[in-house]
């Protein structure tokens, strides 16, 4: 079985109201060095597969189709754990 981590992040230039609000909060908490916060999504997917190359291809297809919206988001896929049992 394979496990994948998918990181979905807002594209550069797309305003992130949540990140802005969190940044303000961090400033209020005296973390004065913070100058930007961007919030994205972290998705874990477990696959019944042992073929990493094929899995990555499929995960990218999933991301393009559903997990990320290409108008506002980028994504990155990584396989982190291979259980050989």
């Amino acid at each position, binding site marked *: 079985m394979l496990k994948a981590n998918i990181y979905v992040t807002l594209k550069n230039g797309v*305003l992130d109201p*949540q990140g802005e609000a969190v940044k303000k909060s961090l400033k209020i908490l005296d973390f004065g060095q913070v100058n930007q916060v961007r919030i994205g999504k972290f998705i874990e997917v477990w696959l019944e597969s042992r073929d990493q190359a094929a899995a990555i291809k499929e995960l990218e297809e999933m991301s393009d189709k*559903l*997990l990320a*919206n290409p*108008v506002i988001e980028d994504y990155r896929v990584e396989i982190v754990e291979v259980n050989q049992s």
Partner: protein
Amino acid sequence: MRFGVVVFPGSNCDRDCYHVIKEVMEEPVEYIWHKEKSLSGFDALILPGGFSYGDYLRTGAIARFSPIMPAVMDFAQAGGLVLGICNGFQILLEAGLLPGAMLRNSSLKFICQPVFLKIQRNDTPFSNKFKSMQVVKIPIAHGEGNYYCDPRTLQEMKDNGQILFTYCSADGEETMEYNPNGSLANIAGIMNGKGNVLGMMPHPERYSEDILGGRDGFNIFASMINWLKGVG
């Protein structure tokens, strides 16, 4: 003439839309459950507001893959009138029937209030009962209506006249001060290139009868009917 109101799990303005078409506009209307796979005999479709699939992942992202959606896309492709209101607009964006995407409101708040809109054109299936540049009042109720698209898409929409409704003041001033959610170019509603698909964040079905405080929304449905009867 027959209207269809598409019902997704989590739609909650479907009955309001049905009521307005049936009782106020006095036209035939049917609910269409999202698990249906075909559409026949409809002249116009409404994708109502709500929280389809609990807004999981992104608003409209999962509803966009409902079994009915290929038929909705074929209907739109063939020139049928499609009106997406609020969550319906978000579904049309996710489905690619309209360009762009929605971000969280810049205030991060869910906003429920009447707003003023400027009707940018009155030569469309959705706005022919208004005057051009008329200012109307229709309520919004959403947490993610902060419309976004890339600069090239925005320019294309401007050039094609696809921006139909913009947020403004009671006097028609289109500044950020009167923009409730931070949307690009004060966009409240856009059409596709052919002008037969409209997505809008405000809820015309909530403002089509005097008893509800106003009836500026009435003219959107009346425009569609006018257009379908060939007098628009």
